[in-house]
């Protein structure tokens, strides 16, 4: 199954009943799959008139307490960013998928990770964070989609799935039965029909009193603190004895793993730390590795964005280098391995 289809099927398995899309390469299979499957499960797949319309429909559906999702690729996600900020301001759970392509502007249609800054720092205006999940396999496209819906409901926040064109387009085996759903809070805030049984709920992001707005933001940041404490996910690959730790996510992490194997065959002890949550970032795990590793290398399909977070995480205790290709070019494992060998020579290890 394709990565894009795995996201769609996993969303339906998670009980997503509303999907609002607008076609854009390389994520259109999500819409296509939803159009086929949603009517059969009693849900709705709607092709909106634009990305902006789609994200605002998402807001409305989510306010009713129903699980809902939208998806797009980089340029379309920029259009959705206003709505994402409104979702955060309204404390609404929702899942937003970005199958990244090259930018800026219309850019290209080949795989990219150049929306890292946007996803982790600035998907919308205001004091805010979003949970950002970065799948690296088609299996993870499925499991992390299920996880995204649960996290969104537990913390009342939009969750971003930051994938890329390669993982979206590729096929791998996928098993939908591997994930256990979490325990979820009741949606007492939902604006759904209640036949006068309770006081009506209001979902809103406009708070005119500064103190009131500050209080709501502080409440939200208290939830962010819990997310940072409890929800960090990462995978360590041959890091125990590694002199150089590659930090890479998504498609880049797969390339990094092969590169680490090549480097080891040439006598350079390399390992890979793969953040699965990009926010919250695995700061503690990277900081701990800075005790044993001699250097870090951030490998990205961009000009270098996550590299700044790696530097912050290891607090300048170790040199942090960068290797990347951008514009839709996928780096070759051999080139990353060459970089690792060059670093080892420079560091005399």
């Amino acid at each position, binding site marked *: 199954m394709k990565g894009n289809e795995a996201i769609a099927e996993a969303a339906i398995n998670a009980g997503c009943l509303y999907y609002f899309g607008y076609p854009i390469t390389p994520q259109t299979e999500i819409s296509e799959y939803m159009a086929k499957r949603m009517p059969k499960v009693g849900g709705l797949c709607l092709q909106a008139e634009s990305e902006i319309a789609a994200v605002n429909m998402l807001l409305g559906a989510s306010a009713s307490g129903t699980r809902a999702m939208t998806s797009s690729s980089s340029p379309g996600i920029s259009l959705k960013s206003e709505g994402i900020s409104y979702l955060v301001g309204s404390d609404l759970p929702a899942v937003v998928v970005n199958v990244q392509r090259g930018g800026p502007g219309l850019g290209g249609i080949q795989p990219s990770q150049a929306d890292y800054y946007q996803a982790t720092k600035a998907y919308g205006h205001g004091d805010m964070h979003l949970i950002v999940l970065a799948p690296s396999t088609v299996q993870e496209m499925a499991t992390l989609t299920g996880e995204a819906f649960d996290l969104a409901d537990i913390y009342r926040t939009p969750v971003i799935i930051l994938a890329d064109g390669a993982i979206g*387009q*590729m096929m*791998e*085996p996928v098993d939908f039965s591997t994930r256990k759903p979490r325990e979820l809070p009741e949606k007492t805030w939902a604006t759904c029909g209640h036949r006068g049984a309770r006081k009506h709920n209001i979902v809103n992001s406009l708070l005119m009193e500064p103190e009131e707005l500050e209080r709501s933001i502080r409440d939200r940041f208290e939830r962010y603190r819990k997310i940072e404490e409890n929800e960090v996910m990462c995978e360590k690959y041959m890091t125990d004895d590694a002199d150089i730790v590659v930090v890479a996510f998504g*498609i880049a992490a*797969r390339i990094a793993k092969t*590169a680490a*194997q090549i480097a080891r065959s040439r006598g350079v002890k390399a390992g890979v730390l793969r953040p699965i949550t990009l926010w919250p970032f695995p700061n503690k795990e990277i900081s701990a590795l800075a005790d044993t590793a001699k250097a870090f290398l951030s490998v990205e399909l961009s000009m270098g964005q996550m590299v700044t977070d790696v530097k912050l995480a290891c607090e300048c205790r170790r040199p942090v280098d960068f290797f990347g290709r951008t514009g839709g070019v*996928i780096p070759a494992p051999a080139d990353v391995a060459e970089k690792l060998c060059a670093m080892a020579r420079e560091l005399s290890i």
Partner: protein
Amino acid sequence: MKQGTYNILIAGFGGQGVLFAGKALAKMGMHEGLHVTWLPSYGPEMRGGAANCSVIISDEEIGSPLVPDPDILIALNIPSFDKFEPHIKPGGMLFADSAMIDRKTARTDIEAHYIPASSLASDNGLSGLANVIMLGHVIKKTGIFDYDAFLKDLVSGIPASRSALVEGNTKALRLGFEY
């Protein structure tokens, strides 16, 4: 499957069944419990335009799903032959549809197999099944999968309403295997 990792690149025109052939190999690998990836070239593709797909079948976890330097190249037209033949790994294998490609490799460090799959298909009333004829030949020469198991897997996805396809695919696979 024989042990190891197979990096396979299949390339031709859109409409020749390039992506389907790749899927058939990947699906078989999956059903044998192996790690598999299938990655298409994607973009403004259309019938008649260039199409290719990378398939990796391995007994180990697969890193990059791209196949820039294939162990096995299946070339279905001249542009694909020209573009990818120089990148076959030394010791690798080339499979070319010789009814479409009027040239041969000059390389001595690869094993080359030529089969006029397109004309075999049209001569035997198997229009559109040159890709499956190629697969039959690939299975014979590489030994990557057992013939009977692959045939069973290939036709298992065909719905009962299109049972004529079972016969066609079976015949095409055998033609390639026995060539």
